[in-house]
């Protein structure tokens, strides 16, 4: 009995590790674990993988030969992954509120921005995993469909970089929306509907030019399609300031100020 009770603390223990601030690497690992150890997280990850495989498979079955190059299959896979990855990002942020685990998380790590930084990093790791998966699936698709076109394996490093960026900002935008709403359902709905509604506004002729700079539906599509020009990167920057940085700033401000319940 005494061995067990001493373990429980009470007396000041002499363990040197007890006043060591948990590192960002550790916190990121914990966030990844929290993302994968629940059914919702597990199925969402699995669903993302399945969607990537499905989209690449459909392209292989129905596409024309030029669509079946490694570059095109990889780009299609990334766009499919980027459909569900933001939801993972949203849940990373909102579960602390919707499941109220914030009462434990922020008791253990009172510096809330540190926790949010770890969540962003965990999101980027997941995005990286998704990219590796897309590379694998695209490679398999290219081998199997073996399109009769020249340079079927060519993937310019610049274009690859754009797709990495594309995946990363999708994930960060998810975390940003989750942080701004602090509730899963509204954040998910908003992350799908707001860009669509905004895009529809862009159909108005007078707004068309402006929206070339503000609508991520337009600017990010360029990134997934071809090597972007300097102007196109400028448009990516301004549109992401509106759709990623602004909700991220609102979210972090809310999280730092809000009462955790």
């Amino acid at each position, binding site marked *: 009995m005494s061995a067990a009770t001493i373990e*429980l*603390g*009470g007396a000041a223990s002499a363990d040197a590790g*007890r*006043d060591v601030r948990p590192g960002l690497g550790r916190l990121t690992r*914990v966030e990844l674990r929290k993302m994968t150890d629940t059914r919702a997280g597990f199925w969402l990850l699995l669903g993302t993988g399945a969607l990537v495989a499905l989209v690449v498979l459909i392209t292989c079955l129905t596409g024309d030969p030029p669509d079946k190059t490694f570059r095109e299959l990889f780009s299609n896979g990334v766009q499919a992954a980027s459909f569900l990855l933001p939801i993972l990002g949203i849940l990373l942020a909102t579960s602390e509120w919707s499941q*109220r685990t914030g009462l*434990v998380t922020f008791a253990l790590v*009172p510096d809330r921005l540190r926790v949010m930084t770890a969540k962003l990093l965990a999101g980027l790791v997941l995005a990286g995993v998704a990219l590796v998966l897309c590379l694998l699936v695209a490679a398999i698709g290219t081998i199997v469909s073996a399109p009769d076109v020249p340079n079927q394996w060519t993937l310019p490093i610049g274009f690859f970089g754009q797709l990495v960026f594309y995946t990363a900002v999708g994930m960060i935008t998810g975390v940003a929306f989750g942080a701004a709403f602090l509730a899963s359902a509204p954040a998910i709905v908003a992350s799908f509907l707001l860009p669509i509604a905004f895009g529809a506004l862009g159909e108005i002729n007078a707004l068309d030019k402006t929206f070339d700079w503000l609508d991520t539906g337009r600017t990010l599509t360029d990134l997934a399609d071809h090597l972007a020009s300097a102007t196109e990167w400028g448009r990516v920057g301004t549109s992401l300031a509106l759709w990623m940085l602004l909700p991220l700033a609102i979210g972090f401000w809310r999280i730092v100020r809000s009462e955790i319940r």
Partner: protein
Amino acid sequence: MIESQGLTKRLGGRVVVEDVSFRCEPGTVTGFLGPNGAGKTTTLRMLCGFSKPDAGHAQILGGDYRALPNPGRRVGILLDASAQHAGRRGREALAITADTIGVDPGRADQLLDIVGLDKEAAKKRVRQYSLGMRQRLGLANALIGQPEVLILDEPANGLDPQGMRWMRGLLRDFADRGGTVLLSSHLLGEVDAIADRLVIIGNGKIAAQGTRDELLSGTGTLVRSADDAALRTALDAGGIAVHPVEDGLIAEAEPAAVGRAALAGGVALTHLAPSEGAGLERLFFELTATAGQEAGA
């Protein structure tokens, strides 16, 4: 050590906690007692850095809670047993805390054992837990970092009588090893049996605080007789104020004086002793009566 200095909190224009000051010393269990809505949880939330006080400040182990580098290794907190991911397995919830604060993940199994959650319960998702099981899991979560301080909000909620007795023993041992325990409750009986000191809060303000004996001194004598009407007359004649309680009368005087008055009135007593529990209960109700009336209105 826990110190609350003049903590004040306004929510929605209403003062919910006003100038609350108390100290909890190592080696003691402090019961934070008050009716629902008295401001207990708000005060505990300010102590743990979840809520910013509008005035005053809180100190845990001599500093701000949020300044502790790895608070999970110093302070065990259980503010709400239901605040766990419903889809996460019990053991996994503990393992995450162990991972975060850098203790051996194997401690999760030891703690589950200590709080009485068996292997089967450990594998269940928290959604399937009863409130009592969640309290046990929450207590395990608070203890996993071998803390020196425990802050527990209504930890006895949902525990059965055996569970409450087990928890009392656990917290007593923790304090006896030099730990500091602060636990809240709205039920006097829960804390009366375990707390060395009581802090009673009503309507956001401290109504009384001290050891059990300090609070009880001067709360009177519980007296019973075969004929309470005659006893009342006798005590009135002796100039001693009385209040009827369920099982007798509380006389506002020392037992010796009450005995003399009864003898003078020729009333045979069946019980004569310092009021103890009955007095504490009456004190609790008196001190928090206004809060109760507001809540009932």
